């Protein structure tokens, strides 16, 4: 007799917290380092209480030095630990670019497999929280280009847990992007047992026949909401939550396209050179003759960041209504 695994309702931020907690309990090699992760318990309280339970050797309050937060974590990983480095906000990640792209991504490759780098870099990203220029950016486009890195951006609590576990387990460096707006906004059932979700698999969140919408992060939820609204109008839109940015799930996208023949990509990152460009190119290369309409990318504008003033943030971000409007246009094309 199958017994349903017990589960608990939790928000995205609670899912991060509980997954990290379980990981530290499960594996002595795991430790967390970052700014304010110890005594403060992380600025979103993700690691509140951890330092008391696991000790300052495992929950390290680092100096304000992003390059070495990652660099030291790389060294720990090379020497057999399982570090989970935190960059307090994705906007602060730039000093660590050298260590992420130039070092972590290449450890296995340059040593031909003699050294490896099982490292997780966690960071909150995304806007809609009045975060303005330095607490709202999306950074996936800067990193997904780099061979040797893996990048995931889950949007639901269940995916958070499954992918964070997968990231911690992964023998290679994984960037774990947490959309901060979804931290407390999104709530769902999460199984209590340990489980992983494979990195590189997207999730079909809604079936449809007339349009494929690909998204991730906060917008995966808004896209779903918009698609449901269109369902009431008799329009059938399929929604895919990418979950994994590198590697990216080809077959889910192409199978959907073969059904609907129309593709809409929605992402919060700037349009030019965002991941929508790569998806569009892949589809044009591999499935041109499935397309019954031009591929369309609905993305945030190509300005450096959303402003602090509410009208500026709202102008930058994409509303669910706007998503629905574009979906409607595409279905009717």
């Amino acid at each position, binding site marked *: 007799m199958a017994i349903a695994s017990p589960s608990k309702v939790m928000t995205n931020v609670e899912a991060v917290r509980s997954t990290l907690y379980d990981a530290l309990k499960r594996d002595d090699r795991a430790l967390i380092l970052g700014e304010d992760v110890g005594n403060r318990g992380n600025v979103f309280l993700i690691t509140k209480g951890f330092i008391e339970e696991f000790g300052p050797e495992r929950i390290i309050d680092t100096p304000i030095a992003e390059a070495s937060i990652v660099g030291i974590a790389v060294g720990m990983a090379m020497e057999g630990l399982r570090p989970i480095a935190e960059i307090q906000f994705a906007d602060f990640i730039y000093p660590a670019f050298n260590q992420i792209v130039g070092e972590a991504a290449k450890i296995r490759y340059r040593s031909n497999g003699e050294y490896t780098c099982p490292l997780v870099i966690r960071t909150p990203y995304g806007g809609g929280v009045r975060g303005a220029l330095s607490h709202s950016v999306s950074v996936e486009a800067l990193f997904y280009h780099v061979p040797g890195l893996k990048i995931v951006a889950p949007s639901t609590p269940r995916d958070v847990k499954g992918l964070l576990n997968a990231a911690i387990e992964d023998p290679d460096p994984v960037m774990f992007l947490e959309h901060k707006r979804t931290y407390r906004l999104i709530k769902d059932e999460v199984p209590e047992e340990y489980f992983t979700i494979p990195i590189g698999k997207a999730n079909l969140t809604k079936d449809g026949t007339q349009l494929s919408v690909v998204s991730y992060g906060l917008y995966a939820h808004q896209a779903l909401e918009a698609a449901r609204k269109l369902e009431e109008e008799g329009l059938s839109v399929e929604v895919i939550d990418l979950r994994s940015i590198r590697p990216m799930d080809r077959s889910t996208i192409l199978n959907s396209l073969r059904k609907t023949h129309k593709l809409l990509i929605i992402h919060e990152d700037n349009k030019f050179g965002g991941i929508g460009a790569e998806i569009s190119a892949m589809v044009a290369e591999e499935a*041109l003759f499935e*397309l019954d309409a*031009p591929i369309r990318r609905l993305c945030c504008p190509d300005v450096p960041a959303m402003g602090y003033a509410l009208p500026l943030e709202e102008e930058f971000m994409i509303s669910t209504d706007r998503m629905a409007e574009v979906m409607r246009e595409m279905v009717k*094309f």
Partner: protein
Amino acid sequence: MPTTITMPQLGETVTEGTVAQWLKKPGDSIEKYEAFVEVSTDKVNAEVPSPVTGTLSQLLVKEGETVATGTPIAVIDEVGTQWAAAPTQRAPAAEAAPPSAPAPSSSPPVAAAPSAARRTQGAPAAPPPAAATNGAAAPGRDGSASLRGASPAVRRLAREHHIDIATLSGSGQNGRVTAADVLAAARMGPAAAVGQAVSAAPGPAAAAGTSTYNAPRFGTTIPLNQARRIIAERMVESKRTAPHAWSMVEVDVTNVWKWRSREKDAFQRDHGYSLTLLPFFIRAVVESIAAFPLMNARFAADGIYVNADVNIGIAIGLPANLIVPVIKNADKLSIRGLAIAAGELIDKARRNKLKVDDLAGGTFTVNNNGANGSIASAPIINAGQAGIVTMEAVVKKPVVTKDDAIAIRSVMNCCLSLDHRVVDGYVASGFLAELKKRLEAMGPDGAI
């Protein structure tokens, strides 16, 4: 994004302007700085250049109308806006108006509308149409002005399912044929392709003139098969969009008939097909087209397109169907070549072996109508062409010769239905005169 153009202030103290002449019409593309309207004020007449590149979508002021400066006079859709200004309802399928913008309730521009009042030819006597409108590609049917051609998915699906896109009505934006439309047509069965509708015809397909015709019984309803449906649609479309005018000449075919009689046995022996008057006629037709190229044109929203190639469709009446296979580049063929090409097509039609390609691309149509004795007919033009000409029955008649004597001659009427948007009286009568002249000059011998 639509840009509204307002009446400019042409002069310091000027407060109003008159639209003297629209230089472009809705659906036309306009370059930035290109003049699109002539405006006159009491001080100056000026051509107004467009501030943007795009497609002219609406004219808001009539020619001759005077408005205050600053009044909106036109709307231009800027380039790159294939998503903008899309009608929220699906465009009606058979709409042949320029599909660039939702039609406003205000009246269309007054410039140069083809005037039905200018039809000079008499109304046709209304015998049943002898020619079908199959196979020709319809101009501008493929979608909005800014997205020409079918999408990759549509082309692939059409190819895979052997469907001629031109035969479908589109349910997408601005009448676009969508992938769903093609799939729906495919699901209706192989008869979705008109060419394959031939196979749905009961009994062996026969060339015009043979007698395997199954008359329906009184009081029965004949269900519409795909072929009949499409024929009906095409006929209606042709008649509704092209104002048909009609003319006729009488041609003395005595000599050409003699020529044909001389050649027919050898031809039959050499090629296995019989040599009819048709190839001689087609030869005369293509030569007359060369003199009057407008007969080889088609009307489109953005202009009258004079086709590069001369592809002559030959109407073939079958007991339950009408098809018009096309001789491509007919002007490059000799009489013998035309006879062979026609013979092959007719043979294929009999054996149900015509392909979609055999039916596509026609630019003008010829109908050999006289087999059953008809001496006049008013055929319906194949949509997308400017005219269709018939060969009626060859009848021996007493005629008055040049020196006022009476002689017995073989006489054949040629009837021309023409699209009066493209062809007017001058060209139509000129073409027929040319056709008559050339036919009468052919034979009684020569190399075919």
